[in-house]
C-alpha cells in the first residue's frame, strides 16, 4: 500500500467490496462459460482464477467497470490467450496442413450436436478459436476481429477457412449420412 494516498485507499476499499460482490455474482457465469468451451474442470478452474486476478489488477489500476459482461469479456481473453499459446506449439503442423479453400458452395445441413462438438475439438486451435468466438459466443465479425487483434478482412478470411475446415472434418466424421 506504500505510496498510495489515503483517499485512494478509501475508494479502493469500496472497489474491493464491489469486486468481491461481483465475484459472488459472476463466478457461476464465468466458470460455466469457460467449462463449456474448454471441457476440462482443471483448465476451467485455472482460467477462472486468472480471470478474477486480472479483474483485481483492473481494480488496482482504477478502471474497472465491475459488471458480469465485463468479467466474461476477461474470461474470453484468457481463453483465447490460452489457445493461442498452445496453438504456437502446433503452428508448424497447421502450416503444413493448411490448403487453399475450395469454392464456396452452399452447405445445407442440420448439424448434429455431438458430432459438431467432436468436429470442433478436432480442428486446429486457430480455427477452433475463431469458430468459438463467432458461433458459440455469437460475436459479430468486428468483435471477433477486435478480440484477435486482426483486421476485419483478415478475420473474414480466417472465419471462411475455419468454416471449410469444419465442414471437411464434419463430413469425414459423417460415415453413412454424409
Amino acid at each position, binding site marked *: *500500500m*506504500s505510496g*498510495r494516498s489515503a483517499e485512494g485507499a478509501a475508494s479502493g476499499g469500496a472497489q*474491493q467490496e464491489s*469486486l*468481491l460482490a461481483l*465475484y*459472488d455474482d459472476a*463466478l*457461476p*457465469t464465468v*466458470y*460455466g*462459460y469457460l*467449462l*463449456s*468451451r474448454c471441457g*476440462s*474442470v*482443471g483448465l*476451467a*478452474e*485455472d482460467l*477462472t*482464477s*486468472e480471470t*478474477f*486476478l486480472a479483474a*483485481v489488477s483492473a*481494480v*488496482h489500476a482504477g478502471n474497472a467497470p465491475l459488471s458480469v459482461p465485463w468479467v*466474461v469479456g476477461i474470461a474470453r481473453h484468457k481463453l483465447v490467450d490460452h489457445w493461442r499459446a498452445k496453438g504456437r506449439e502446433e503452428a508448424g503442423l497447421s502450416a503444413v496442413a493448411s490448403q487453399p479453400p475450395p469454392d464456396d458452395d*452452399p*452447405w*445445407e*445441413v*442440420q*448439424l448434429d*450436436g455431438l458430432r*459438431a462438438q467432436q468436429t*470442433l475439438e478436432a480442428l486446429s486451435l486457430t480455427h477452433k478459436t475463431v*469458430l468459438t468466438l*463467432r*458461433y*458459440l*459466443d*455469437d460475436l459479430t465479425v468486428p468483435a471477433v476481429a477486435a478480440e484477435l487483434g486482426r483486421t476485419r478482412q483478415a478475420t473474414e478470411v480466417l472465419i471462411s477457412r475455419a*468454416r471449410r475446415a*469444419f465442414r471437411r472434418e464434419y463430413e469425414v466424421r459423417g460415415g453413412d449420412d454424409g
Partner: protein
Amino acid sequence: MADPLEALRRPIVPLDPDPSFTIRLRSHLERALVEGDEVMPALESPSRTESTNVTPPADGDIAFFSLHVPSADRARAFYGEVLGWRFGDPMEPGGYDRIVNLSLPGGVWDGEGVPGVPNPGVHLVRHVADLAASSAKVRALGGTASEPEVTPYGSRARCTDDQGNGFALLQHPPGVAQSAQNGERPGDLAYITIAPGDEQLAATFYGGLFGWQFRPGSVEHALQVEGPTPQTGMWGGTGRPNVMLMYRVDDVAVAVAKVRALGGEATDPAQMPYGVTSDCVDDQGMAFYLGQL
C-alpha cells in the same frame, strides 16, 4: 438457407465450481486486493483459507453422496434429464463420475461394490474433524472402519455400522463450509431418509458416534435426527437397510413427467406440510423422491 454453423451457438449456462475451489479463490482474491500492487501468483494451495468466514461442517454432516448403480451412463442420462445434473471429469483415475453443478458434491458409480452399500443404493460420505478418533469410536460401537486412505477429497475410512450398513468418514480439508439443511438449488439433496434396519440400534450407534439427538417421527419406527446436514430422518419400518434421497426441484409435476417418460415410476405429486413431493423409482430400480420445497 440459414447458416448451419449458427447451430453451434452456446449461450452461457451458469455453473457453480467445486465449493472448495470457490472458497479458495475468494480468499485468494481478498488477499490480492489487500496486498496492493504486488503481483499475486496463480492460485495453488488450499492452505490459506483460515481467514474466511465459513461455518465448518459438523461431525456426521454429508461431505459427498454417490449413487451406486448398474450403469453410470444410464444414471447420467436419467438424472441429467430429470434433475439437470451435469458431470465433470473424475478427480482420480477410475474415480466417480462427479456431478459438478450441485451445492453439495455427488457422483454416480458403477464400479466395484462397497461393503454394506446395495446396488442400486446410496453411499454416504460423512465429514469428521478427526478421522482417527472417529474411526476408533466406530469400532468401539460395534462397527468396522478401514485404515485411512488418502483421496483427492481428504483422508477417508470406509466403515460399516453395527447392523452392516456401509458408509465412509472423511477428514475434511480446511476451508470447507457446512452445506444447507435442505439444499439450495434444483438438483440438490434436500432430505435423507435412512432405513438402517432397526432404528433404535441405529440411534444408539450414530448418536454415540456423532452426538446426534433423536425425536420420534410422525409414524411408527420413524425418528427425526437433530444435528446433520442435509436434514435427515430414520425409519426402521422397512426392516431392511436402505438410504433414500430427496432431491430439490423447481416443479415436481415437470420432473414427474420426465421420470415417467424415461422409464421410471413416479407417484402423482402430493402436497405435504413442507412442500410438494413425489415418490419415484429410476429406470434402474433406485428409489428416490422429489421435493418442491
